[in-house]
């Protein structure tokens, strides 16, 4: 991992096409501005992690389709 220091207002350039600028520093929070081409996905890592974990949980559920249909049927009755 490359570690470098930047001051407020300073920028780093990645691959000649992505610019990351330190906009504001307050306590332990840093506000960052990122300029990148539209085909570059920028996401908070927590979100990606959360999607992955939710997928893993969704896939590991063992459901019986027949039971699912029965439950849905009951649910429909209860809701109507």
């Amino acid at each position, binding site marked *: 991992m490359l570690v470098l220091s930047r001051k407020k207002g300073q920028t780093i350039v990645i691959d000649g096409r992505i610019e990351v600028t330190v906009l504001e520093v307050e306590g332990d929070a840093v506000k960052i501005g990122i300029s990148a081409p*539209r*085909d*570059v*996905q*920028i*996401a*908070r890592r927590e*979100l*990606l992690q*959360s*999607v*992955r*974990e*939710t*997928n*893993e*949980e*969704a*896939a590991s*559920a*063992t*459901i019986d*389709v027949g039971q*699912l*249909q029965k*439950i*849905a*049927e009951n*649910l429909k009755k*209860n*809701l109507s």
Partner: protein
Amino acid sequence: MKIETTLFGELEIGEEDIYSFPDGIPGFEQDKRFALVGLDGLDGFACLQCVDRGELSFIVVNPFMFFPDYEFQLPDADAGRLEAEDPGDLSVWAIVTIRDQLETATANLVAPVVINLRKRLGKQVILVASRLGTRHALFPATKGV
């Protein structure tokens, strides 16, 4: 082709029912081919069944049916990956997590599965700028019952 699945037992899938997910699905990046299987009597539900691993499947729902206010802008990068030209070619699904009971099931609205029916391409799109989450109650009326 016939595949052996955990959910349906033996399942007959035509080549035309198979969608290619070039990026896989987060957590399952190795799995690239899925079929969308309807569930009899379950309106708005379907199953995204992995073609190459019968034990892997996701229950999905039509998010617009369960969340009438749901909308999102398909990011350019994803539209490119899906070769999406006409919104009419796209089919949108939300992955459902079921814990013990269907009543407390949740849908992942921040990461919809978008399928280009014409190009037979699919992708789980992550709406990075959205305030939506990965766990929205499918049946809020019965929440906590």
